[in-house]
């Protein structure tokens, strides 16, 4: 096999529309920014036109999917692309969007404490002064996320600031110029709301009679909420399927659908529901926030949730561009490399000024404080069968049955404090191992790791 690979460059002229560019993997694919640079990276540069994306956020107590939708709408307004927002409270939703700092009429709310970016900047400066081994000096810094775009890429992706709200003037100007349209969810006649909404969207897309079609963004921020009426899983699949067909019919448009939280779980749609959603859309991502799970937020204190990718858009190629070009995911499948690597775990965090997606890494020690060589103090291993009867009499009968059944193995007492102390005292007379366990009371003394060998002569350090 020769090592020469001629790239088949298609000679299609791409008429640049505002805020779009060609995908790095295929000249036929036109991508546009979602407003969040790290999300663009995960999608392989941006959301391709003619593709639909579904952002799932199963946590009912947070609204991260709506935040992503607001970024999406704000980016469309900033780039003066046509934006269609579906929902009864669409106007209110758009007025809550974020905006770029320093725009006229909007002053970012400053406060005495430095912003997160400045803190990060100071921290990185400090790191630069740390001496590192010479062989690592050439390596680039460990980055968990992609950088914000610099000024040269402002035409593609704007830098939004969560502390700035979109000025009223921008929305009114956009409404007057018909750059933004609000489509309410109505229940007229026999047709379902999804069909009515899709027909209206199709009408708007069809009316565009320009020579180069206008790049259009469609956003459905709260699909399946109360205003949509009674929704069954087949309705959701039908809506997403028809929306995707519509986007393919009018390939200068793209869509983002954020289903309501209760729709985002397998409990609602049955087994395999998330996979069904991933099959009928082009890009499908779940932002599972740590809000409902305190143990996860304790393990990953600097992140607010995990990101699971179910489907990636690939409108003109077999391999999704994200697999080849996403720096965050880290799946490099080029033929010339030494083979691919596994995918990075991804998480997101919402800082004061922005929402970013990052790679997720465990702590240095892997989450365990120290190496354990003896069992934890809550275990009290018993001798085989000998002392099972005495201590378990004091325990409730259910536990006693369980411990008698598992007579051979070490039993874990799930009892009250008194009974635990009694079992320890009872077993103290039995074996030396128990003595050590009893000595290590719930007081949690610091254990020292010591290497004791049976043959000290052999390992004489």
């Amino acid at each position, binding site marked *: 096999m020769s090592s020469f690979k001629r790239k088949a460059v298609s000679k299609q002229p791409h008429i640049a529309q505002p805020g779009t560019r060609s995908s790095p993997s295929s000249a036929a694919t036109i991508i546009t920014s979602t407003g969040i640079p790290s999300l663009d990276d995960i999608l392989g540069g941006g959301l391709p036109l003619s593709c639909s994306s579904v952002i799932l956020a199963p946590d009912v107590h947070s609204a991260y999917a709506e935040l992503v939708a607001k970024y999406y709408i704000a980016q469309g307004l900033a780039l003066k692309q046509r934006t269609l927002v579906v929902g009864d409270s669409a106007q209110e939703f758009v007025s809550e969007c974020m905006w770029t700092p320093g725009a006229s009429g909007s002053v970012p709310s400053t406060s005495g404490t430095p912003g997160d970016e400045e803190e990060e900047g100071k921290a990185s400066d400090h790191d630069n002064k740390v001496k590192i081994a010479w062989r690592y000096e050439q390596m680039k810094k460990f980055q968990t996320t992609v950088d914000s775009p610099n000024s040269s890429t402002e035409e593609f992706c704007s830098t939004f600031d969560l502390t700035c709200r979109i000025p009223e003037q921008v929305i009114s100007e956009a409404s007057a110029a018909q750059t933004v349209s609000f489509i309410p969810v109505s229940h007229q006649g026999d047709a379902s709301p999804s069909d009515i909404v899709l027909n209206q969207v199709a009408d708007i897309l069809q009316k565009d009679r320009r020579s180069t079609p206008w790049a259009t963004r469609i956003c459905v921020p709260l699909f399946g909420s109360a205003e949509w009426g009674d929704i069954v899983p087949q309705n959701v699949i039908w809506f997403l399927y028809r929306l995707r067909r519509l986007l393919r019919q009018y390939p200068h448009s793209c869509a983002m659908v954020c289903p309501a939280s209760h729709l985002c779980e397998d409990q609602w749609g049955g087994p395999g529901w998330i996979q069904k959603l991933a099959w009928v859309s082009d890009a499908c991502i779940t932002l599972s926030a740590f809000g409902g799970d305190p143990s996860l937020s304790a393990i990953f204190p600097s992140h607010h949730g995990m990101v699971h990718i179910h489907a990636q858009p690939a409108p003109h190629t077999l*391999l999704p561009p994200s697999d080849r070009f996403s720096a965050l995911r880290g799946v490099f499948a080029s033929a010339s490399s030494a083979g691919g690597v596994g995918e990075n775990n991804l998480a997101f965090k919402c800082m004061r000024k922005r929402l970013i997606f990052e790679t997720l890494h465990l702590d240095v020690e892997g989450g365990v404080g120290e190496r354990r060589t003896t069992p934890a103090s809550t275990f009290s291993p018993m001798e085989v069968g000998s002392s099972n009867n005495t201590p378990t009499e004091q325990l409730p009968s259910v536990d006693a049955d369980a411990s008698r059944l598992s007579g051979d193995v070490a039993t874990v007492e799930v009892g009250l404090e008194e009974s635990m102390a009694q079992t320890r005292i009872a077993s103290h007379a039995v074996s030396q191992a128990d003595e050590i366990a009893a000595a290590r009371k719930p007081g949690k003394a610091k254990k020292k790791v010591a290497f004791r060998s049976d043959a000290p002569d052999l390992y004489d350090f």
Partner: protein
Amino acid sequence: MATFPPPDLLSSGQVVIVTDQILSPADFLLHRTLASHFKDHKDARCIVLLVSESISRWNAIASRATVNLAALIESQALRFLDMVKDIQPHLGTDDSTRSTLVPLINEVRSLLQQQGDVQADQPTLILLDDISTLEWMGYATNELAKFLRALSILARKGNASLVVRHHVITPDTPDELFRFLLQLCTYHIDVRPLSSGRSGAVNGEISLYRGPSNGTAHVKTIPRQHAVQYRLTDAAAVYFEKGTGQAVL
């Protein structure tokens, strides 16, 4: 380097089911089947029943495999039929007048009859790119079963091969449609992701089983233990035996 699919797999009258999962979609197999069908046989014909993939994607990927779909459509050798109309299939009702699948069967029958006598070098292929999405959007399972049975009978009568793709979303518990498909097929191609998750070097594994309707086994089957692994590139897939991927050798 292993080759897949085996060349005799789609000789006339075979019904092949392709199952895949979300982490290992099998669209590359459909594209490859179409491309090799037209490349290997001079006067080949094909009918593609579209559900999930768009024509522009078929065009884009076929052009990378140097198959000119536009010319084939022009010469009526290739026909794309849209399976889904703009009306949602009504749930639960068994009203045959509202079914949109019966007219489709008639259309396929008329297309196959138009070709007249099928010569040995004029093989016909019918590709159905997605049957499970139809079930999820509201078509009743028994309606789809009747449709598939009619389609397979048409294919056998017209000496055509039929390839149907089905998405498996619950790998442990086969659903009713999948069980019906398995009864019907002569070969079953199963594309699964690696159990260790996504990787750049290996996108998934393919195994090939004989179906119950298969009388005599012409093609060597590939059990799961010796599954052929594949890696996707922009235009096609590269197949290799387990353990002989580029990362290892």
